[in-house]
């Protein structure tokens, strides 16, 4: 139950945060951070047990009849992600408090962050795929709120919508995949699905499932061609970028791929799809990052690149690659989270976001510089930092990749080189050189702004120097959850003089060169930048515009604001559906029925027909009302002829009242005028004729259809013995179905109240007169 408590505590705090924030003021972040900190400590104490093969479990029945259960389980994979989410989350809460300061909506941001944290924990710990999907969608929604936090800026709103539509679209794909898995495997429980693995792998739907899962994961993790929403999401406040867009949410897609790898990993397309898209994203992200000068956008594109690396590693799928992927993922969360927070602290301290216009900040912000330098070195993959270990393992894994070896080695080395350039651009450039003019005089960040980046950067150093304490077990534990057994391996800074080390050195040299000559590199890249015009972002824009145009057009068509066109559309639809069905089935029996009508019956029928036609043709109000009454009285006589005296009496009374009301009210209204053109009347007449024919056919079919006489017989048999009434119709209304009649009376009473309210000379009339005068 501890897991359920941990997740629900986060949501509970999120609910209380707006109120607590008001009470606690700017220090709220430090208090809020105790919850994620407690979760992180709890995870750390349970880590040895989890890593030795006994996952923590917790279940909470939600809707058992739907197979929906909040089933949680923390294995090696859940442990790694859980620690990142709670650890980085706690630091971000403190950082956000300091970053926003006395901002009016500071506690709202904290609340959204906590909702996001709880949802993320739910995603990575869910044992039930439906539960996972629910939390997955919650992360999309909370991310929408977080990116659009500054909702008064249109750019922020557009970016939030873009992220929501892209990840939400992927979420729908994931839902379909989950439902397919559930219907093939007979359960939504991951453990149960793994038992049915062979059935799933043999299913003809396997290809569709793989593609849909990949769509869900690729949109979430900003893989090519869905990478464009992530840089846009930099409109979010920096604490959000540091949390969602570096260490957690964008890694949810990767988590999903890792989680489902044991199930789908042997599918033919799984490995190649992941490898190809991951490698493409890795190279593309790195190239696009070098082109940027805006600090956060540089980091965003390089995050795209890093996410590509991990996807590629999962795609290669060897033991080496998977371990490398998780080692790199851990390193990336630490250095990228740190660099994002550094970028935010720089912006906070001197009001400048452009890396090229910053310089010489090392004097004003020495502690921040140290943190930034450590993180940047880790990102560049230099020893003795965790990024170095991750990159070395990765290069080794690509060198040993079973397929596409050369291409993968070249691509990875190229991306590694550009990552060195980017690391210097984002993490070192603002601090060195001569002091640049900035909108505000640079000042040292407050402890709250420094704690996050500093601690994460130091962890990147400590984890590399002492890999056996945390980095090795965490990476191997996560890899074990994917591979099935925990690999026998250990992370180390020194692997000897290997080919990977050579490639690494080459990458650093090329990357440093590219940094020095970045003007030339950028102008070269700008030439291929023309590709942006046909890129997926354009496609997204066109699709959104098209969707709005279609929605607008169909609204204008259906919601014209003209009453008669609504009637026309509604009737037309009914006629088309009912008449079409009758026509297609050939169901209308064109015979007169078993008995011929008698003369009186024919006469009454003719009266009703004449009355209704006269109603249509009458040019004066009184004539129309009289004709209407004629039809109604005719109907009453028809009821008498066919054994319905009660109906006849009611119809007579109602018809009389109707005529009186019509006369009384229409007396106050203007004479009939003809509004429509003859052509219009002809068209309407045609539609009316078809509608009438449809009803005629329908009544013929209904009269021919045998109905179940059980109910009628029951009422006939029980009327006298049970209800002491001989008029069965009356008994039904006032005894057997008395509640219905009560409802009917209520409806009448409400109508009467409405009539009364409308008849009273009220506000509306006076306003109308007032306006007519003005």
């Amino acid at each position, binding site marked *: 139950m501890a897991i359920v408590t941990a997740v629900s505590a986060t949501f509970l705090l999120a609910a209380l945060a707006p109120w607590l924030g008001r009470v606690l003021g700017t220090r709220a972040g430090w208090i809020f951070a105790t919850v994620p900190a407690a979760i992180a400590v709890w995870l750390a104490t349970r880590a040895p047990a989890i890593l030795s093969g006994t996952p923590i479990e917790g279940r909470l029945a939600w809707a058992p009849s739907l197979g929906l259960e909040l089933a949680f389980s923390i294995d090696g994979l859940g442990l790694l992600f859980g620690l990142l989410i709670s650890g980085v989350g706690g630091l971000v809460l403190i950082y956000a408090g300091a970053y926003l300061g006395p901002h009016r909506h500071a506690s709202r941001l904290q609340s959204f962050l906590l909702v996001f944290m709880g949802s993320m924990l739910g995603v990575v710990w869910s044992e039930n795929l439906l539960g996972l999907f629910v939390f997955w969608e919650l992360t999309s929604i909370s991310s929408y709120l977080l990116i659009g936090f500054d909702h008064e800026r249109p750019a922020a709103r557009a970016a939030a919508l873009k992220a929501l539509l892209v990840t939400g679209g992927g979420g729908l794909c994931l839902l379909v995949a989950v439902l397919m898995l559930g219907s093939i495997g007979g359960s939504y429980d991951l453990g149960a699905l793994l038992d049915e693995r062979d059935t799933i792998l043999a299913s003809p739907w396997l290809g569709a499932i793989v593609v849909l899962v990949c769509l869900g994961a690729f949109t979430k993790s900003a893989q090519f061609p869905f990478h464009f929403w992530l840089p846009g999401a930099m409109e979010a406040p920096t604490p959000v970028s540091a949390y969602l867009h570096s260490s957690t949410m964008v890694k949810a897609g990767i988590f999903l791929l890792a989680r489902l790898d044991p199930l789908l990993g042997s599918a033919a397309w799984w490995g190649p799809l992941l490898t190809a898209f991951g490698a493409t994203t890795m190279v593309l992200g790195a190239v696009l990052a070098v082109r940027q000068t805006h600090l956060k956008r540089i980091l965003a594109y390089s995050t795209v690149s890093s996410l590509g690396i991990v996807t590629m590693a999962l795609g290669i799928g060897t033991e080496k690659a998977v371990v490398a992927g998780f080692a790199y993922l851990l390193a990336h969360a630490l250095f990228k989270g740190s660099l994002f927070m550094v970028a935010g602290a720089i912006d906070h301290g001197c009001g400048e976001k452009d890396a090229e216009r910053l310089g010489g900040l090392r004097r004003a912000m020495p502690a921040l510089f140290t943190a930034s330098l450590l993180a940047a070195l880790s990102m560049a993959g230099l020893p003795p930092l965790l990024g170095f270990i991750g990159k070395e393992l990765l290069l080794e894994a690509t060198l040993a990749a079973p397929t596409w070896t050369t291409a993968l080695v070249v691509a990875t080395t190229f991306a590694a080189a550009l990552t060195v350039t980017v690391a210097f651009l984002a993490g070192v450039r603002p601090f060195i050189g001569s002091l640049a003019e900035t909108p505000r005089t640079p000042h040292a960040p407050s402890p709250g702004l420094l704690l996050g980046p500093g601690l994460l950067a130091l962890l990147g150093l400590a984890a590399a120097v002492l890999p056996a304490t945390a980095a090795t077990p965490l990476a191997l534990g996560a890899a074990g959850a994917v591979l099935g057994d925990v690999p026998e391996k250990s992370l180390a800074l020194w692997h000897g003089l290997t080919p990977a080390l050579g490639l690494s050195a080459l990458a650093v040299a090329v990357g440093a060169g590219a940094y020095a000559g970045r003007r030339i590199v950028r102008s070269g890249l700008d030439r291929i930048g023309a590709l942006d015009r046909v890129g997926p972002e354009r496609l997204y824009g066109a699709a959104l515009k098209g969707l709005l145009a279609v929605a607008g057009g169909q609204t204008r068509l259906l919601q*014209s604001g003209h009453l*008669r066109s609504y*009637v026309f559309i509604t*009737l037309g639809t009914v006629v088309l559906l009912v008449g079409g069905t009758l026509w297609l089935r050939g169901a209308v029996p064109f015979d007169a*029925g078993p*008995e011929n*009508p008698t003369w009186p*019956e024919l006469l009454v*029928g003719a009266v*009703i*027909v004449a009355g*209704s*036609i006269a109603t*249509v043709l009458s040019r004066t*109000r009184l004539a129309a009302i009289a004709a209407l009454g004629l*039809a109604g009285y005719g109907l009453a006589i028809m009821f008498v002829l*066919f*054994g*319905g005296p*009660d*109906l006849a009496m009611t*119809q007579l009374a*109602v018809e009389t*009242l*109707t005529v009186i*009301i*019509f006369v009384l*009210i*229409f007396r106050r*209204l203007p004479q*009939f005028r003809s*509004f429509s053109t003859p052509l219009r009347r002809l068209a309407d007449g045609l*539609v*009316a004729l078809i509608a*009438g*024919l449809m009803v*005629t056919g*329908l*009544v*013929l079919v*209904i*009269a021919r259809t045998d*109905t179940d006489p059980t109910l009628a017989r029951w*009422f*006939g*048999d029980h*009327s*006298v013995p049970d209800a002491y009434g*001989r008029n*069965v*119709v009356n008994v039904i209304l006032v005894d057997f179905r008395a509640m219905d*009649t009560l409802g*009917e009376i209520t409806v*009448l009473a409400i109508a009467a109240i*409405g*009539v009364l309210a*409308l008849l009273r000379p009220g506000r*509306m009339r006076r306003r*109308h007169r007032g*306006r007519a005068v003005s």
Partner: protein
Amino acid sequence: MNALFAIVAGVLFACGTYLLMRRSIMRLVMGLVLIGHSANIAIFTATGLKRTGPAIVPIGEETLPATAADPLPQALVLTAIVISFGVIAFAVVLVSRVWATAGTDDSNRFREDDDMEAVS
């Protein structure tokens, strides 16, 4: 016999539909009345028509004879008549109120009236 009822229901529905599509709101309400009649006939016909007598248990007997009319559709139609009366009464008063407020009985001009309100 069924054909007679089918034709009467069809004519009532056609006339009602035509009136419902008029721009004059008074005619529109009259259309509602006719469509209501048409629906009642359809229900009344549903379980078969009988000329033999109302659904009343004769004195001295305990159960309804098989020759009597079916009580079930009659109970439904009775309810329908009363409810449609409520609807019509409300609609008629609503129409008069619309006339008083909008100053027109042409439903096409209600929209312009909305626009005027939005501008002012």
